[in-house]
């Protein structure tokens, strides 16, 4: 059965994030005053911190997971810029291991974290210090095809070094249409790469500017509101069995054939999307 491989030292996993850094990411997300670019890096940095904690054992961080982060945008002359947004000691590195992530945050930041106090029934704010690896960027256009093309090279090379692993999971987060052509074929070619455990999983999340309802893990393109949503749907891999069961157990109402895709996502949906898409990494041996 495919998509069954457990993540271990011998069979590392790869999570590759493709992040839209186009100018429109400067706009607010959903119905909140926060900008898409800010919410996105908050979610990614939060995920990286969680993954670091999860990978940490008695003897330190276990080298189970490789992480890739690629941002994509254009410069003033419309030349595509596909580069890693990691900073600090990991500056410019496209592919790093979780050990390097854990040991090298770019900086620490004071943030406000909210808790729910059940005894008093109210929301409480506290100050926390969180590690930051990725900084927000919003400039230029949306060279999605270029990004997927670069991702192909990265993933192909990684697979050659890890042919037995759980297939790489590519998480693509954007807020609009591609401005360098139809990304469908690039997505198809990326998804055609495979390890012995199955084909590469490509999950797409679209960030919303409106206060409309989000779509999470739809099973058919018919219920989706427009062509962009349907395109992203076709570009997205169906959820493997274990992820599907895990989502259902958590309360998602999924139909058979549900794909790893979110449309009109607000911050809560983005976080749930990230959590679900990387669910395989919950159990690290």
């Amino acid at each position: 059965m495919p998509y069954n491989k457990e993540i271990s030292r011998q069979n590392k996993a790869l999570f590759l994030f493709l992040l839209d850094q186009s100018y429109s990411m400067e706009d607010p997300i959903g119905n909140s005053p926060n900008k898409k670019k800010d919410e996105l890096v908050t979610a990614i940095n939060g995920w990286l911190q969680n993954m670091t904690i999860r990978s940490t054992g008695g003897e330190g961080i276990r080298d189970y997971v490789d992480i890739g982060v690629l941002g994509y945008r254009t410069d003033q002359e419309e030349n595509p810029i596909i580069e890693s947004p990691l900073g600090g000691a990991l500056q410019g590195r496209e592919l790093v291991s979780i050990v390097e992530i854990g040991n090298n945050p770019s900086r620490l930041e004071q943030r406000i974290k909210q808790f729910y106090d059940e005894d008093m029934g109210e929301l409480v704010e506290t100050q926390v210090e969180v590690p930051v690896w990725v900084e927000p960027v919003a400039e230029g256009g949306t060279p999605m095809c270029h990004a997927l093309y670069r991702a192909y090279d990265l993933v192909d090379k990684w697979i050659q070094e890890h042919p037995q692993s759980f297939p790489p999971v590519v998480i693509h987060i954007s807020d609009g249409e591609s401005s360098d052509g139809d990304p469908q074929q690039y997505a198809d070619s990326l998804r055609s790469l495979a390890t012995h455990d199955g084909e590469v999983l490509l999950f797409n999340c679209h960030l919303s500017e409106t206060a409309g309802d989000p779509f999470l893990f739809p099973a058919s393109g018919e219920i989706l509101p427009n062509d962009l949503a349907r395109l992203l749907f076709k570009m997205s891999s169906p959820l493997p069995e274990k992820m599907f069961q895990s989502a259902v157990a958590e309360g998602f109402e999924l139909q058979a054939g549900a794909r790893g895709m979110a449309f009109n996502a607000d911050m809560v949906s983005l976080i749930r999307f990230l959590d679900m898409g990387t669910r395989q990494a919950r159990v690290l041996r």
Partner: protein
Amino acid sequence: MSVGIVLLIDESSAMDAAAVTGVAGGGISSGGGSSGGGALGGPPKSKAESVATAVNSVLAKLAQAGDCEVALVGYRSSKEGESQAGVRWSGGLAGREFVSAAEIAAAPAAVETRMRKVRNDVGGFDESPVSFPVWYQPTLGDRAPQIAAFEAVRDLLSRWSPANGIQGQPLVVHISSGSAGDGNPLRAIKAVQDLSLSGQTPIVAHLHLGSSANTPSVLFPANRAYLALGPQREWFERSSLLPGHLCEALKASGVTVNVNARAMVYNAKMVDVTKALSLLAAHVQKSLAGQAVVAAAPVARPRPPEGGPKLGPATIKAPPPPPMRTAKPAPAPVAKPPSAIAPPPAPRFIKPPAPAVHPPTPAASSPPPPLSRPAPAAPATPVPAAPVAAAPVAAAPVAAASLPVEPLAGAPVAVEPISVEPVAAEPVAVEPLELAPLELAPLEVTPASLSPAELAPLELESSGQSSRQSAGQSSGQSADSTAGFSDGSAGGELQLAGEATGVMTAAPTGLLRVSASAGGSGTKAVISPASPGCLVFVLDRSVADPFAADLGNACGKLHSLLGDMVAEVAKQGKGSVDVAVVSYGDSAGDTEVRTTLEGGLSGRVFARDSELMSGAVRIDEFEEQMSDGVGGLIAVPRKRPVLVEVEPTMATSARPAFRAVAEILRVWIQDHPSATLNPVIVHLTRGAGDTADFAAAIGELAGIATASGAPAVLYHAVATESPHPSVVFPGSDETLATDSLRALWAGTAELLFNAELSAEKPAIKPGARGMVVNGKFFVLIDPFKRAMATRG
């Protein structure tokens, strides 16, 4: 021979509300402690607790009554929306369906010690402990899936075959607190009444629990005409005739019963429940003695014209089917790396027109495009050339080359077919050029609808916003005139004095539209507890099929939306908002309009926001997920009060409801002569109504305004039955897919305090109308808050 009894009990959250005992100062119940918080002290018991006590008490009696078999059935829905209807025997009887009297006596789930109170000689009470066997111990769920419940009962009865045969008519007693959450149970109940078990047809009796000591109970009515339109008549239809021997038994206990009385109590108090349940033992005894009189079949009434009654003994919902996954096989496990499709050719990169880092204007970065874009108003010519000119006619050849082929993705301002940016910085462009519309934007403009008067407000120097708005308006009007609204002369122009605010213009189609900010005649809108604002919800109960068991039906979704909005008002209203809820639906071919609240606010039309939580029929509790600010999620418990609970019905005219709204608003306005904020009306609907009917309906609201001249504004919250994309506060109707929705939009006012809202919230553009389809109406409380803030 055994007599069959089915006790069917509501286990929805509505049963958590306090029971009404019906005896002044609390009562003396044989089975329980003090009932009611009256003279005997103690906190009031919930309906669930009181009913459980009554049921356990009657089970103890039935265990001694003779040869009978009893099925104990409960129904509720889980938080996830699954119907849970089934037998509730527990302990030694767990899993059993019909249980004989002897077995009941032998196996209570538990035995409690309760204090029986007996009046003593000196006017007080003596307490003595008694053993109280308990069989029924309910767990409450969320909503009340009555269709699923009666389907379960039908299934149980059809499979029941006692060893010694059936004697007398099986008797189903249904105890509930409110409406069904999954549709109209009429058909499911008829399916039970239509059973024939050894030639005996079941009797179905309904005991509906009241919520207030002040509302009178309706006991065993015989004549539909004397019942109030609405739930009383509906339950009447669903109840069997009382058989003669039970009429006698009731008369013997002092209850007046007429000929053709139905087995029904509405707004029952616990005293009535006890009396009704005492009928069970009488029924068993009389049936066994052969003295039972068969109840005649209820008089048939015209059924709604659909397909046949729902069949099928579907009981408890089957779990979702296992997903069928056929993952692609992994490539052959050979040592060499898996083969790959050759990477695609280097991608083309089509230049987006004007990517920029800084806030862009269309003319800012790339040189040519603005010249090829037309101003929507060439002031001289209302007919700007052939609208769909194939070749962009432009005096500047540069323009043609840079006309993008793709939609202007990447340009910060999307170009929509209708709203076109004027040339902000180049007035020169107007005169010499013959401007053809953008290729992408076939601006179908017919000369008739673009009169110079409408184009007049468009000036090239004006900001992009107002021209977009006007363009939207003109196109909206052309859409109106082509949509065929015939009522052209009904509205006329309704202009109120005071040009800055509150101008209500009736478009030529007769629909009302408010396009300005709040308050009337230039006065600032202010509300306070002494001079409150006014908010009326109008709930459309129509669904495509009211008899389909569907916990997710449109009416239910609208209830949730209503609950969310009421919760918002209750939380932030600060005692300054009067709230009313009007619902309308079809009842036996007539339009039934209810204007009063239910639960603790029963009988009232308006209630103040501060009373809503405590007066609700019940409070729905749910969890909302929020971002914790650092990339994680927290689950926050939230409460949603339910002010009214109505069943879905067939579609009906909206006009009587809007007439009723106009009437209650007139009365309210008369009672509040100092009101200054526009009354807000929110129409909750599935958006599938008849457009002509809707036009007539909102015509009823014409002229409704406060004494200060602030006209009522009509908003819409829509939950569609078939999938439709979310549309939130649209400035035009182009994202709306159906004629009905577009008609609703045309009748929707712009959001109050439009200018302030669009400045503060980027999701709201100027000219946004107060309409949301499949989304959250998140600025409902906004005008009220602003009116509070402006308190001098």
